[in-house]
């Protein structure tokens, strides 16, 4: 694969793109704020002593609505893209997606249980209620992934092909369970379930944001340390082993990071497809398959892509809002087809 862009140029470019995405995400929205007010409110939020006259609305919209939403978009996009790289490295297949190890379907099952069965848990303490959906989705994603990983292990070895097939089987099983909950749901919960499956950054609040930010930071700091090992894995499992890499440990870490990262992202924002698949590809097209570049660059590219998609989601039909999953799939699916067909020409 040819390298179109030097790593340094790529990082500078992606950082600028990311800054642009953050700025647009903070500056644009259904409520049109004067640019100057946005700037002053942003400076006030950082803590600079600027007079508050007439800035109440700008500060509220910036601080309570757009900033948590922007952070959520960055974290979700970044961690989904990272997990995509991890999965494509683990399966040594560019078509791999974080959903392959069952984390998405597990999270969907957890969410369906929370949404449809929520009334059964009615006796839970008040403070717990709003987070039930996120918790169930997170636990569901982690649980199903753990099961897939267990099924892929034999004699102390993880068989990637078995794990892949186990992932497909458990995804189907979780899908049928979600179907059963869909059947049991009444009209209102059915709508909630449908919208959850399309994902949204809407209603982001700091309380939901912190766990995701911590996990994203952890995954984003940890995975790049394993970039060399991932590069070696590209050669094949035994080859990587001969190069002195503990392949079993690497696989365990990749699956764990993906389950944690995607689980947290899905718990915070619902299902958002195609980011984990498309972003690593994009970066690989530009800068080649070296994981030392691919991993950090994917974080920046994933975050930026999701912020741009969210801008479309909230501006296209304002004052109503599109679920962001529709936008990412709308961009992602044609791109995926292009990748598939490009090789044939």
């Amino acid at each position: 694969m040819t390298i179109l862009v030097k790593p340094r140029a790529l990082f500078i470019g992606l950082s600028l793109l990311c800054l642009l995405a953050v700025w647009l995400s903070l500056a644009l929205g259904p409520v049109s704020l004067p640019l100057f007010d946005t700037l002053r409110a942003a400076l006030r939020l950082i803590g600079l002593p600027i007079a508050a006259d007439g800035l109440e609305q700008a500060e509220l919209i910036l601080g309570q609505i757009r900033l948590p939403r922007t952070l959520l978009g960055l974290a979700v996009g970044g961690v989904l893209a990272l997990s995509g790289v991890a999965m494509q490295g683990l399966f040594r297949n560019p078509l791999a997606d974080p959903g392959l190890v069952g984390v998405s379907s597990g999270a969907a099952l957890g969410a369906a249980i929370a949404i449809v069965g929520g009334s059964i848990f009615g006796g839970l303490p008040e403070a717990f209620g709003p987070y039930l959906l996120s918790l169930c989705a997170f636990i569901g994603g982690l649980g199903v992934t753990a099961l897939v990983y267990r099924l892929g292990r034999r004699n102390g070895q993880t068989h990637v092909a078995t794990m892949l097939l186990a992932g497909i089987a458990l995804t189907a099983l979780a899908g049928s369970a979600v179907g059963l909950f869909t059947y049991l749901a009444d009209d209102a919960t059915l709508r909630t379930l449908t919208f959850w499956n399309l994902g949204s950054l809407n209603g982001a609040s700091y309380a939901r944001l912190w766990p995701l930010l911590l996990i994203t930071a952890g995954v984003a700091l940890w995975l790049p340390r394993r970039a060399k090992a991932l590069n070696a894995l590209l050669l094949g499992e035994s080859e990587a082993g001969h190069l002195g890499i503990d392949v079993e440990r690497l696989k365990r870490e990749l699956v764990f990071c993906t389950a944690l990262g995607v689980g947290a992202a899905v718990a915070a924002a619902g299902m958002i497809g195609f980011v984990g698949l498309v972003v690593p590809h994009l970066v690989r097209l530009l800068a080649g398959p070296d994981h030392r570049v691919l991993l950090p660059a994917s974080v920046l590219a994933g975050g930026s892509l999701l912020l741009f998609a969210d801008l479309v989601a909230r501006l296209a039909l304002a004052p109503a809002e599109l679920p962001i999953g529709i936008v990412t799939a709308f961009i992602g699916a044609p791109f995926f087809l292009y990748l598939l067909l490009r090789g044939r020409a």
Partner: protein
Amino acid sequence: MRLSTHVAALCAGLLVSYHAVAAELPQRWVSAGGALSEWVCALGGESKLVGVDTTSQHPQTLKALPSIGYQRQLSAEGILSLRPQILIGTEEMGPPPVLSQVRSAGVQVELFSAQPDLPTLQANLQHLGKLLGAQDRASQLLQGYQQQLEQQKVRVTRAQLQEKSPGVLMLLGHAGGKPLIAGKDTAADWLLQKAGGHNLAAHSGYKPFSVESLVSLDPDVLVFADRALTGDAARAALFKENPILSSTRAARDGRVIELDPTLLVGGLGPRLPDALKSLSEGFFPGSAGQ
């Protein structure tokens, strides 16, 4: 002289406070809930509405207003961009973080119950009347509504003395295809009962049915609500997509009644009594016009 100054002062005071109250009433409304929007219009507040959700389909003029999306999936900034002073909705409105964001922006958020019963409606109407400054109109509307439902009850009891309650199935579909059957604990079931019909479906919620069990229940009357089509087109589509329906007694006797599906969401709306009346006329053809 002294007395009259006092009286004048009192009058002036009352006038001022009255105006103050009127000025404090919210003037820019956003409504997320079909039946609520209808009531706001019925109370003369249509000109105050600046945005409605996708379930607000009646009166037709509401469709010209900006849409804030589906009531359970609202966007805080989208709503704020309409600069409302009040947001009303049922307990289905959400998600909760968005509501608290809207609230913290200084918008009054009022929640109403969508429970389909008269005490709830009474409370809702009184509350709405107060918020719109139309208490008198609200109690008039409520009185009329109660009367109509009372007449409906009498009509049904009288009819049931002369005729057997018909067995009814209520089909909710989209352009005729794969209709869902309304079971217990649905707004549709409540409607059928109030109109004097006997709902043959015993499950709860809206569920798909196999055509065989549909035919074996052999309904006397079919009520259908179609989300895509209306009138004869909807009727034709229903029988074209489900030919087996033509063999039911309801179809043979030509007792197939159409219902507006928007009546089934968001609690008791102002169009309900008329809908009930026409339903029970279809259920008890012998007693119609009494």
